[in-house]
């Protein structure tokens, strides 16, 4: 297991692309082949995934007040 990653900046970008669903097949292959052997990359992956999940699941999603939806409906009815 590698304790230091010499490509950390590039690996971080690749990890983000993978988590975002925007990675190429080559990026995914590289990730699959190397990830398990590099501790800094495993840590980065876990952190990026955790932050993404926190943003998706923990941050309150504000709902539109009904009066605004009603105002829109009446605005287009004119």
């Amino acid at each position, binding site marked *: 297991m590698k304790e230091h990653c010499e490509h950390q900046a590039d690996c971080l970008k690749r990890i983000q692309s993978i988590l975002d669903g925007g990675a190429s097949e080559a990026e995914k292959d590289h990730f699959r082949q190397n990830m398990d052997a590099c501790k800094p990359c495993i840590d980065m992956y876990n952190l990026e995934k955790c932050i993404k999940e926190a943003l998706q699941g923990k941050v309150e999603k504000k709902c539109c007040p009904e009066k605004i939806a009603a105002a829109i409906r009446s605005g*287009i009815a004119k």
Partner: protein
Amino acid sequence: MPEIMSDTQLQGYTDEQKYEVFNKEFMPHIDSMYNFAFRLTMDEDDANDLVQDTYLKAFRFISSFEQGTNAKAWLFRILKNSFINDYRKKSKEPAKVDYQDVETTYNSDEASETEHTTDLRFETVQDMIGDEVASALNSLPVDFRTVIILCDIEGFTYEEMAKILDIPIGTVRSRLHRARNLLKDKLKEYAASMGYNKNDD
């Protein structure tokens, strides 16, 4: 990839069809639109106005929308443009004071290429509650906040984000990368101030 209000052919909707498209394709996104507006303006009244203006604009230009294409991205693009044109100057943005520093540190191409490390641990983020994560997000300058909202909260693809923001996909990726580095710094600061890391060392 659907076009979003660009050079697409104008649709010849009847009045009845316009209302049908509006109700079926636009109105279901109103909560996401409001959430986006609120995260941009950080103000409920401004978010109310921005959503209302955007929907009325969408109705006015409904002939530019092709039924069955990506209505959510189309609406988000209108909202983003309305925000830039009409609201940005007056929006209450707490991070404004720090913006110059942030620009200098994060907004250069060189900054995106340099190695960015953080000792923030995922367990620390797991322990945080939603309001704390939201505070860190809200403290980012609006351009960085926007890409994180679009990608991580709304789940848009890079291609959709590029269309919504009128920027190349490469810029979407690099802006996201910089935004996330900044967010991690904010989360780290927040965690330290709240004592989340006290047992880590």
